[in-house]
């Protein structure tokens, strides 16, 4: 990893689960009728460590001002902190430089930015965008809207029954007319890790760009955009220890420079007259209006926290925990697990059903035992259709989860089955 000038190196810490858990005070709270919290809804949003909470407070207490063009001390400091956070994110994902990092609200906004600023400028009727059946709605709907507006062709790589993608079909779906392959690196509904190397090779063979939805992968897997060979990467801060409302679009600099602006307004212009305007340089061109400075700075702290743990260690922790959970849940009578049965090919996300009990009821009863899971379609209705289920229950892990928490989930599910009289 290259270290941009001015950024302090991050000292690597051993993976000490007890110490990590102490950094998250919320994990000590009780819910419902006095049960200790077992937070297994990390694919929806992570918890935040004291280091990130302290950074938010520190920014507003000591450095708060609007950024850019201010001559006073606070504005200069706030600008430096904001740009330093950009550099931290760039280093974290292996960007060529901080200018390739655009701050947005979230993954959804990042993908929409590409759909508006790149696709509307460069795509013509008949051009193809290829997505997959396991995408989150945020990587489906913007392309459907673009298709309906601009007459592009939208194709998708189907899901196989085990939750992986039909890569043979991908070979035929990605053609000489394909201009963009927009694909998730990890399914939020099933945890499937997509073999991006295969998809990128197919896309590059026909000269198509690749946009990766990294909402689930960047928080949980080592990600290096150079090694991946992709062109855009979208992700959200709130799933990786940072606050809500801050997200990232990474893009290759020449690509970003070729694009039109997204939103118009302050900060994204070079000059404005009553007749016309000219655009600021990247990344300011894509950051119209006052940005979410405080949360961007806090994202920098979150990235530092993850860097100190090491993303390889984060992945190994979750791989081991997921393997344990797959074995443990398989032993619970009536539990049916969706997706690949192999922790090497899935992230820390386990979608399942308990035979005879609706996922809503599973989640409700688990909540009384302090176990927080998500139930529903997980903003991936095509996956539910492919599985032929209306909804699933989903447990998802992060850096602080333990095997004891998996045990609490498993024994909770046994109680649910008893409660509804299905066992």
């Amino acid at each position, binding site marked *: 990893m290259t270290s941009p000038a001015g950024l302090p190196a991050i000292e690597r810490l051993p993976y000490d689960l007890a110490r990590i858990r102490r950094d998250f005070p919320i994990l000590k709270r009780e819910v419902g*009728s006095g049960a200790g919290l077992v937070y297994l809804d990390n694919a929806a949003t992570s918890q935040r460590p004291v280091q990130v909470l302290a950074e938010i407070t520190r920014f507003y207490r000591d450095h708060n001002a609007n950024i850019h063009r201010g001559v006073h001390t606070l504005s200069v400091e706030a600008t430096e902190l904001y740009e330093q956070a950009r550099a931290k994110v760039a280093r974290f994902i292996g960007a060529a430089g901080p200018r390739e990092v655009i701050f947005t609200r979230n993954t959804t906004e990042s993908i929409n930015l590409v759909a508006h600023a790149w696709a509307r400028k460069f795509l013509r009727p008949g051009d193809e965008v290829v997505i997959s059946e396991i995408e989150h709605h945020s990587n489906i709907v913007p392309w459907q809207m673009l298709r309906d507006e601009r007459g592009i062709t939208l194709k998708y790589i189907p899901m196989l029954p085990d939750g992986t993608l039909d890569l043979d079909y991908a070979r035929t779906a990605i053609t000489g007319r394909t201009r963009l392959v927009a694909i998730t690196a990890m399914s939020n509904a099933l945890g499937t890790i997509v073999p991006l190397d295969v998809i990128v090779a197919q896309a590059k063979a026909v000269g198509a760009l690749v946009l990766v939805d990294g909402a689930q992968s960047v928080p949980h897997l080592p990600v290096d955009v150079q090694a991946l060979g992709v062109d855009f990467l979208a992700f959200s801060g709130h799933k990786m220890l940072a606050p809500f409302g801050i997200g990232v679009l990474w893009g290759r600099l020449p690509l970003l420079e070729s694009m039109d602006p997204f939103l118009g307004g302050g900060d994204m212009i070079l000059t404005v007259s009553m007749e016309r305007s000219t655009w600021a340089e990247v990344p300011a061109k894509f950051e119209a209006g006052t940005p979410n400075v405080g949360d961007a700075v806090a994202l920098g702290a979150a990235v530092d926290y993850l860097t100190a743990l090491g993303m390889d260690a984060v992945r190994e922790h979750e791989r081991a925990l997921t393997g344990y959970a797959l074995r443990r849940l398989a032993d619970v009578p009536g539990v049916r697990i969706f997706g690949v049965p192999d922790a090497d090919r899935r992230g820390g996300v386990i979608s399942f059903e308990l035979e005879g009990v609706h996922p809503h*009821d599973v989640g409700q*009863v688990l909540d009384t035992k302090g176990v927080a899971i998500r139930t529903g*379609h997980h903003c991936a209705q095509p996956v539910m259709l492919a599985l032929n289920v209306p909804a699933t229950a989903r447990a998802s892990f992060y850096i602080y989860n333990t095997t004891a928490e998996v045990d609490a989930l498993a024994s909770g599910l046994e109680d649910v089955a008893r*409660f509804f009289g299905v066992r």
Partner: protein
Amino acid sequence: MAESGLLDDLYREIILDHYRQPRNRGAAIEPTCSADGANPLCGDQVRVDVALVDGVIGRIAFSGHGCSISQASASMMTEYAKGRTAAEALRGVDAFQQMMLTGEPPEVDGFDDVAALAGVAKFAARVKCASLAWKTLAQALAEGGGQVTTDDGSR
């Protein structure tokens, strides 16, 4: 599970009874009006078929799938509605919606079992589940029937 009084408020025995042994589910009737209801966020779906005879609900049936609350509520709704006039049934729908707001069972004739759902009001995420069949009944009784959704776009 006796340790959780809150849970017992939600899953009253009479509710679980309707869930396990739903009344008027999938009954074959010749409907004069019907409606489909959906709660897209949780995947609940219900269809309500009504056979009106001289303004009175002679027969009623529901089908679909969903959580215990939505299915039990649909079962109770059919028991409540059968034999009542359309106008009276619509007043029952209003009373049910009011119960979901207040958590208080209303003084309504025929709400004996239905009153057990009052505890759902404490669980904001489940009110949509309980309301679905009732909204769908109102839609079926409205002119022409049609579709109804509890999804107001909120999360």
